[in-house]
Every structure is written in structure tokens, then in C-alpha cells.
């Protein structure tokens, strides 16, 4: 009885007792979720267009952020460093397409996955060689991103109906806005332009796309570039909250449960999946974590994904898997 009470009733009593704290937790979860969603978005872009699960998306986030900070530390002004970092992601996209993907066309998916794992370790080594292994501080202020915080005191939401307290970091608000803008731009790009249409065409049927004169090489370079830009944005936002280090690469694997939830081919899925995982793991950590001694944030996402797999293997928004036999 006691155990059931502790799991099913007590956490909700705590939430009701201190609604402002609940709001704070939800906000933290939301922001974390947005960052997961951005990483997942990078995965989805490449998976949609080429069927490649890009294991290297996480290291691309680190590499992009390191390039930006590294250039700044080398004396390049922040705005120029940003443009150069974008250009570096462009060069990386061309290199990946020309040196790796082009030679592996029509190979089984497992080969393509292995090649991206190889790419991951190459980028780790290459990144450490150029930028060194120490964590760096993101140049948040130099890029013109806000750093302060807003303190809200919603009346009646605190303990025992007293005044509440919710703190919103400005950088988190900026992250949310940038994520929304990026997703909107990508949405328009995918749905309204020739190249976007070509991207979807390649995702649907390689041969048919070739027959209408769509160049697979060009499309792949473009998706890797788009994924690189998304990686840079993620790297800036994530770096601003902690610091820029290779540890981020591991955190990026959180995108996996996000993708299982949202479906590997759906942009809205990546976003909703990211938010569910972000909010779910924060709520779990704060209200249910103490029951098992805390620290559940690192694995709860995978458990949520596992449960999801049992009931909806194609994800929330993924295309249904129907095979004629």
C-alpha cells in the first residue's frame, strides 16, 4: 500500500502543493526537450533523404560549436566566426558526400550506418587535434544572445497559496524562438520549393527521382549541409547552457528515444518527441526520482521509448509500416 501511495498519489500531491515549482520543472523540461528535438531534427533530415541513420549527428553538434568558439578564440570577430562556422559545415557536407556517401550508394543500410560511426570517430580525433580536448565556453554574449533572466511571481501558485516563483533564463527563451524559426523555415523549404520537393522525391523513390533528372549527389550534399546548420544552432544553444565539450556527443544519443517516439521520417514527430522526452524525464527525475534514489534522468527516456516501441513501432508521426506479402 505504501509503495503504491508513493508512486501513484504522493508525486501528484507534491505537484499540487507547489504549482510554481511544477511550472519551473515543466519549463526546464520544455527547454531540454527543444534541444533534443533540434538534434533529432538533424537525424531526420538525413534519414529522410538517404535512409542513412547518421550516428555522427552528435559529434557534428560538438564540431560545429568547437569551430565557432575556436575561431573566436583565434581572434576572429564573433559574426565572422559564425559565418565561417556555417561555411565549415558546408565543406564538411561536401566532403562527406564526395568521399563517403557517393561511394556507398546502393550498399546495405548497415554499411552506411557503420560509415557514419567511422565518421564520428574521425571527427572526434580531428576535433581534438585541432581544438584540443578541454571544454570551452560558448561565446553567448558575443553572438548577441541574451544572458539575463526574468523572474515571474505568479500570485497564489506558491506553497500554501502564497506568491509563486518561476525563473526563466533568457537564453532558454531565445533557444525556443530560434528552434521555432528554424523548423518553420525548414517546413517551407521542404514543402514549397523545387529543392525541397526533390528532397522528398529522393526520400520516396531513388530510381524515380533519378529518372526525372534529380541529382542524388547534390541532394545529399544539401541535406548534410542543412543537418550541419541545425547542428551548429544546437551546439550554440547547448553550449550556452553548459559548456562546449565532447561529452555533448553522448548527450546527443538522447535523440534516439526521441526518434523512436516521433518516427524517423517526421519533422513534427522529432519536435513533439523531443518535448515529450524532455518534459517526461524532468518530471520523472524530480517527482519519482527520489523513490529510487534519483539519477533516473539518464535512462528514463529510453524506458519511455521502449514502452512506445511495444505499441507504436512506427512512432507518433512515422509512416505506417505496411508490407504486402
Amino acid at each position, binding site marked *: 500500500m505504501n509503495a503504491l501511495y508513493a508512486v501513484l498519489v504522493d508525486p501528484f500531491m507534491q505537484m499540487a502543493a507547489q504549482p510554481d515549482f511544477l511550472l519551473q520543472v515543466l519549463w526546464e523540461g520544455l527547454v531540454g526537450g527543444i534541444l533534443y528535438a533540434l538534434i533529432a531534427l538533424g537525424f531526420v533530415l538525413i534519414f529522410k533523404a538517404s535512409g542513412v541513420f547518421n550516428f555522427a549527428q552528435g559529434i557534428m553538434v560538438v564540431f560545429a560549436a568547437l569551430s565557432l568558439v575556436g575561431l573566436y578564440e583565434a581572434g576572429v570577430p564573433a559574426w565572422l566566426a559564425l559565418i565561417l562556422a556555417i561555411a565549415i559545415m558546408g565543406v564538411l557536407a561536401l566532403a562527406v558526400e564526395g568521399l563517403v556517401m557517393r561511394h556507398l550508394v546502393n550498399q546495405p543500410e548497415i554499411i552506411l550506418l557503420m560509415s557514419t560511426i567511422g565518421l564520428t570517430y574521425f571527427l572526434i580525433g580531428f576535433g581534438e587535434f585541432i581544438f584540443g580536448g578541454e571544454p570551452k565556453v560558448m561565446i553567448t554574449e558575443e553572438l548577441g544572445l541574451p544572458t539575463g533572466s526574468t523572474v515571474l511571481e505568479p500570485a497564489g501558485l506558491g506553497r500554501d497559496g502564497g506568491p509563486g516563483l518561476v525563473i526563466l533564463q533568457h537564453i532558454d527563451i531565445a533557444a525556443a524562438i530560434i528552434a521555432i524559426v528554424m523548423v518553420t523555415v525548414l517546413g517551407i523549404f521542404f514543402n514549397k520549393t523545387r529543392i525541397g520537393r526533390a528532397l522528398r522525391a529522393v526520400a520516396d523513390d531513388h*530510381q*524515380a527521382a*533519378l529518372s526525372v*533528372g534529380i541529382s542524388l549527389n547534390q541532394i545529399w550534399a544539401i541535406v548534410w549541409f542543412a543537418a550541419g546548420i541545425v547542428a551548429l544552432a544546437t551546439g550554440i544553444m547547448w553550449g550556452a547552457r553548459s559548456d562546449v565539450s565532447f561529452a555533448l556527443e553522448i548527450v546527443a544519443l538522447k535523440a534516439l528515444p526521441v526518434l523512436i517516439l516521433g518516427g524517423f521520417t517526421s519533422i513534427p514527430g522529432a519536435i513533439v518527441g523531443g518535448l515529450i522526452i524532455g518534459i517526461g524525464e524532468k518530471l520523472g527525475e524530480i517527482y519519482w526520482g527520489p523513490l529510487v534514489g534519483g539519477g533516473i534522468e539518464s535512462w528514463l527516456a529510453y524506458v519511455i521509448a521502449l514502452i512506445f516501441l511495444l505499441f507504436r513501432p512506427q512512432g507518433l508521426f512515422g509512416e505506417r509500416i505496411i508490407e504486402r506479402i
Partner: protein
Amino acid sequence: MRVDAEGGGPGAAPKKGEERITGEVLLSIDDISLSFGGVKAISHVSFDIRKGEIRAIIGPNGAGKTSMLNVINGFYHPQEGTITFKGETRAKMRPYVAASQGIARTFQNVALFKGMSTLDNIMSGRSLKMHRNFFWQMLWFGPAQREEIAHRRRVEEIIDFLEIEHIRKTPVGKLPYGLQKRVELGRALAMEPDLLLLDEPMAGMNLEEKEDMSRFIIDVSDQFGTTIALIEHDMGVVMDLSDRVVVLDYGSKIADGTPDEVRGNQKVIDAYLGVAH
């Protein structure tokens, strides 16, 4: 030189004018051989396709007809022989080159972009005609959008031509098979090709759909002057539509000529009736 086949087999289409102007050679296949590992798919086949004609490629199952189309549009690279298109001789085509030189095609098992609408599928056929680059596309507004509108107009004409206005916005995966084939034809037409390759355009269709498709093929030939090469199993349709027929069997050419000539050819009769080789 069109020869009317007797009787109106299934898919009997409206008759075209008696005289067709078939001009110089548009595509010529010279001594092409193609094998996969040890299996010969095509051996030493030569034939040509003249400007403006409807050329049929027929033969029993496994004769190498689809392989032939794949060689022409660059999906397969033959080990021997050459392909001459618009006066340029190549050992092999590449799909991108074939498409940009004006070769469009449809597929035996409809290969559409299933998640996209009819309109987007046909618009994708305009890819090579649209030139605004990546950066304009990213901006979307301005020149890229004007270009989009201009091409959309052309696509609407094709949609009218194929009488598929009502399914403009429907995701093609949801359409019945006959309509999917029509959308696929639309996508190929959107490329404004000089040579249109149709791989069994009427397979799996009912009589009415076959008649519609025959009519569209003839209209494409008459109105746009497009040269057409088609693979088809329905003999009534083949004899009715085509100006010249090439017959393949076990990867070799066994006959080539007008429908009447081919029909009377003993080798062709044997191939279809399965006389021992």
C-alpha cells in the same frame, strides 16, 4: 507509316491519321550486350527509334525489354555496344544525362513519390527546367517563387490534358492503380521530353482505363510530337498504337518491322507459342 491492325482488340484507340511523318533517327542502339554476372540479359541487339514514331518493344517475359529501357535511360550500363542519342554516341548513359538530354520514362511497377500530392509529383518533373539556386530557394520569396508559379502553370496544362484535375491535391499513394499510372505519365510529360519511354503503361488496367491510356499516348504523339518507345503485353494495343515493333526473345532481337510484318514472322509466333529452341 502506320498500318491499322484489324479489329479493335482491347484498348482499341481512336485512329490516327493514316500518314505519320517519321523523320531521322533519334536514338540508335548498336550491338548492345548486357549481362549480370553470368546471366546474359541482352545480347548483341541493335535497333533505332525515329523522330516522331511510336516504337513498341515486345517479347515474352524475361526477354530483356525492361533491361533495354534501363540501358537507354542509364540505369544499366551495357558491357558492349553504343547508344547514339541526338547524334551523340556513348558507351553508356547516365540517368542524369539521359534526363537532361530529354529522355523521360515511366516504370513497370509505378514509381511515384507516394507521400506527395499529384501536383507535387508532376512538379518534380520540372526539376531540370527550374534554375534558381539553393540560396534563392532558401529565401523562397522573389525570383524562386515567380519561377515556381510559371512552372505551376505548365503543370496545370498537363493536369488538364490528362483529365486528373479532381485528384490534384491527393497524395498519390491513395489513388487507384490506373490513376497512378496516369500521374506517372504526367510526371514524365512535365519534363517535355524528346523521347518518352513507357514500361507497360497499361499493365493491370481494366478495359476502360486501357482505352483512356491509349488515347493519351496517341494524343501525346500527335499534339506534342513526342517520340515514344513502349513495352506492352496487350497485343491488340501494340498493333494498334505502334508504327514499328521490335521483338526480343531471350535477350536477342528476333524481328523488327511494322506490326503486320512482325505478326506474320514465324520466329515471333514460335517465341510466343513456346516452340523449343
